């Protein structure tokens, strides 16, 4: 706000209309961030690659940043040895949903690494990624993790599973799936643990029981954060007793010096994170060969080892064996199919008046 213009407006007799418009302009500021398509996020992708050298544009979700930055030099070295070409990388890291929307909106990424299948589906829907992207190893999934509970050092409240989060006086943090697509995993885990519990009690999955289970945990919510990172920031500022997020996020923070007690509940969900070549963009840039090679490289033992060191559970079984002690498999582990698959989950849990909405609105 320019101080001078404000003064002029306040002194002139006709200032009021100006003020109304100015105020409207101030409001418009939020609307711009609120409603615009992410064209603003679209970056120049560098155009077609010249012969000899090649540029690869990576659009990834923020959590995977450290791993990707470790893997890139390994790939550059390998590609140089095999073809003599130097690959330069342009990287962009955003929340998974934001990244997917940016790519749909015109950010010409060659390779997309996103936190959930649904976000790749946004790209297939926009005809950017071919429907056969799952024909890679492990159905196109490059890393795994589980939903875990992070508590204060020494776990003073003795939290062992999601049911403990519903105990009176426990302050819980998790991000809102409305603002962070990746947080759907967290809610899926709690909801699924409720389904497991009902299955043990009555012999079959009871959605009503699972909803009440989720509700009882949600009653203790202290903050519904914008993203998993925001939850951890709040927790590290001293808010709350427990947070629900991915095991790899907690391990990565611990590696940076945070002191989370990482609790893996017996019943929790297996997270799988996909990667895909963005077909429309590689064809445009003429980078298909190197993009495919990079995505394939993500399944190599070298890359899988990097993921494992950064807190992810490797999909490569040989590498997993080496890290087995760090990543025990909880006895009640279930995957998204247990909840009926992503399509079903999106409809029953996250649709407009779905279970999550009902829990939020207290219905």
């Amino acid at each position, binding site marked *: 706000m320019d101080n001078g213009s404000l003064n002029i407006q306040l002194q002139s007799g006709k200032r009021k209309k100006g003020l109304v418009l100015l105020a409207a302009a101030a409001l418009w500021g939020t*609307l711009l961030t609120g*409603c615009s398509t992410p064209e603003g996020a679209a970056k120049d992708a560098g155009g077609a690659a010249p012969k000899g050298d090649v540029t690869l544009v990576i659009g990834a979700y923020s959590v995977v940043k450290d791993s990707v930055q470790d893997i890139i030099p390994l790939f550059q070295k390998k590609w140089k040895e095999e073809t003599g070409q130097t690959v330069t990388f342009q990287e962009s890291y955003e929340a998974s949903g934001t990244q997917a929307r940016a790519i749909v909106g015109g950010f010409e990424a060659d390779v997309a690494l996103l936190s959930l299948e649904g976000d790749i589906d946004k790209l297939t829907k926009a005809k950017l990624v071919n429907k056969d992207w799952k024909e890679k190893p492990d159905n196109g999934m490059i890393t795994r993790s589980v939903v875990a509970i992070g508590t204060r050092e020494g776990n003073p409240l003795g939290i062992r599973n999601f049911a403990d989060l519903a105990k009176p006086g426990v302050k819980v943090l998790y991000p809102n799936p409305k603002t962070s697509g990746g947080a759907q995993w967290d809610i899926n885990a709690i909801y699924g643990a409720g389904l497991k519990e009902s299955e043990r009690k009555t012999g079959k999955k009871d959605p009503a029981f699972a909803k009440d289970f989720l509700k009882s945990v949600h009653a203790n919510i202290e903050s519904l954060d914008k993203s998993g990172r925001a939850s951890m920031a709040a927790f590290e500022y001293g808010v709350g007793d427990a947070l629900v997020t991915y095991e790899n996020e907690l391990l990565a923070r611990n590696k940076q010096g945070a002191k989370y007690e990482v609790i893996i509940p017996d019943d929790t969900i297996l997270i799988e994170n996909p990667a895909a070549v963005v077909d429309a963009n590689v064809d445009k840039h003429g980078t298909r060969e190197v993009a495919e090679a990079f995505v394939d490289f993500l399944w190599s033992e070298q890359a899988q080892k990097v993921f494992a060191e950064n807190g992810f559970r490797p999909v490569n079984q040989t590498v997993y064996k080496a890290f087995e002690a760090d990543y025990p498999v909880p006895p009640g582990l279930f995957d998204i199919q247990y909840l009926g698959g992503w399509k079903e989950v999106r409809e029953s849990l996250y649709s407009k008046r779905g279970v999550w909405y009902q829990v939020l609105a207290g219905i």
Partner: protein
Amino acid sequence: MQTSWLRHKGWTYGFRTTVLLYFVILIVLPIAGVYVYSFSEGWAPFWENVSDPIAWKAVLLTLGLALIATLINVLLGTMIAWVLVRYRFPGRTVLNSLVDLPFALPTAVGGLMILLLLGPNSWVGGIAERLGFDIVFHQPAIVIAMVFVTFPFVIRAIQPLLEEMDASAEEASYTLGASRAATFFRVILPQILPGIIGGGMLAFSRALAEFGAVVLVAGNIPAKTLTASVFIYGEVESDNNLGAAAVSVLLLTLSLLLLWFINRVQRRGGRA
């Protein structure tokens, strides 16, 4: 003779057209766009989005908290402007230039600072917790964030009025035996009132729209700490652009009505 072309009528028209175009392109078009978009699928989906209890409670909460923040800023801002204009003390010019800093600082950083200074691990937050009330992730933190980002408006609106105030009226008031309080309320306040109202209106509108700081310090729990801007962000993130536009329209209309109303009251007061 040589300068007659400078006085040509075309200049005036050209200037007017440019200014009007600027208004239309920068302000009228985008706002009209939001209205058009939110009704693009008819009245029913608009109503469905707006009548969602999570949505309208977020709007109500935002209006309430923004009002509190504005009142605080009107009181504090008037006092600070007064001190900055009327008193001479070392460091005054430095303080005066610090006033605008909240505009220069990304609001998310402001939010982080609030977390750091008032969180449970800080001594303020610690004392508050022992006394049994929470600051961060509850409504007080939202008000503090709003006060922080709208801090300069009232001060900057009042300062020039105070500076240009004719000292003789004040002196006459004292000479005629009026007390300090009476002089303030009957001589000074009426002169700075337009600044207070104008600055307050700007502060209020800005507080309604605040996102960056609020999203960090608020718990974002529906009906308790979820503000309209954060709700709108959530709708965009979950691919419900129509819902985002609908709530934006609600917020826009409410604040336009409010601004228009204050405008009328002010104009009537001016004539009386």
